[in-house]
């Protein structure tokens, strides 16, 4: 049993609990914070104390180890997808590239853009390298090279991310063109490796870039 095939129920419950915790946290966050959170178009801010990420050890597209520490001291935009996905994932990567260049025009540089594969079985580091660097050579692709894919499960779990093979059957061959369902959100991770905001789908580059500028200003003076 790999995490891909597990029942959806616990995850759905986890997601619901996550949303409840988020809403509760947002309320508390508002009450205790001196500064009013900014009005945002597409992002939802996590409260201060919410969701430190789980420790994880994934591999980047060059085969280098990538852990929570690699998220420190800079802002990261992180989303989940897979390279056999021909429609949504390229669209999201295109949006993220547009966000990147819109932010650069405003003098905001150095934000890490990260795709985490929900399909480690097919997405090997070399495969990810070909894929991610096509969109932008600075983008980072992460995959889980552990046999049980526990590292992906840890990271995804701490963000309340759902993923699972669509219409999985017991006799599926590994090389088949199966599809993977996955959470469509883009997560903003702060320089302390904490989930700071969530951008919900559908994604619009202009709206994300505008919210990013607002959020970064807010985070600076908070």
């Amino acid at each position, binding site marked *: 049993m790999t995490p891909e095939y597990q029942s959806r129920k616990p995850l759905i419950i986890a997601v619901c609990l996550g949303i409840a915790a988020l809403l509760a946290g947002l309320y508390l966050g508002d009450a205790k914070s001196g500064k009013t959170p900014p009005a945002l178009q597409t992002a939802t801010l996590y409260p201060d104390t919410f969701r430190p990420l789980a420790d994880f050890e994934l591999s980047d597209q060059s085969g280098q180890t990538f852990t929570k520490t690699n998220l420190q001291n800079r802002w990261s935009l992180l989303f989940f997808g897979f390279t*056999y996905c021909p*429609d*949504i994932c390229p669209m999201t990567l*295109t949006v993220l590239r547009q966000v990147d260049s819109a932010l650069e025009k405003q003098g905001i540089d150095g934000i890490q853009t990260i795709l985490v594969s929900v399909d480690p079985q097919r997405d090997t580091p070399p495969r990810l390298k070909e*894929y991610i*660097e096509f*969109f932008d050579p600075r983008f980072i692709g992460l995959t889980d090279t552990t046999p049980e894919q526990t590292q992906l499960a840890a990271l995804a779990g701490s963000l309340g991310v759902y993923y699972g093979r669509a219409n999985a059957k017991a006799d599926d061959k590994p090389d088949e063109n199966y599809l993977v*369902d996955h*959470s469509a959100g883009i997560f903003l991770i702060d320089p302390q490796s904490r989930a700071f905001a969530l951008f919900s789908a559908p994604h619009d580059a202009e709206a994300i870039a505008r919210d990013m500028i607002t959020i970064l200003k807010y985070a600076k003076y908070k």
Partner: protein
Amino acid sequence: MMKKLLLLSLLLIAAPVIAKPLLKFESPFIAAAPPGVKTMAAYLTIVNTGRKDIDIIAIESDEFESAEFHRSFIENDVARMEKLDKLVVPANSSLALTAGGLHIMLIDPKRPVLPGELVILRFTEKSGAEHNLAVKVKFADGHRHHDHHHHH
């Protein structure tokens, strides 16, 4: 001579009937994809000028092992994709295949399919009528990644 003339006149009468397809295929393109991909997506708008819905029941391309109609959708913030058996182009209307929604999924390219190339897609209607369409491979947003400045 007489026979030839007869044949020619028959052709002239028949031609306008044959050359009036009810479906029009507008702004098709295949999204350029990274090297080594196993799946690509094609997008277009299909216009039905007829008075009846038209089912498109098959799609194929010689450059790919197979092709399917797919639909991406977001449900409870989860990105999902499903295979469709057919496309129904409504009468006097059109059907748009766009990123994040309906699309043609092209599976297992027989060779690398590169930006700028033309690929023939073959649509088959339920009636058996076939349409061959030359579709260009291009970047979804006009982006050309090698023009992008690399700096740290």
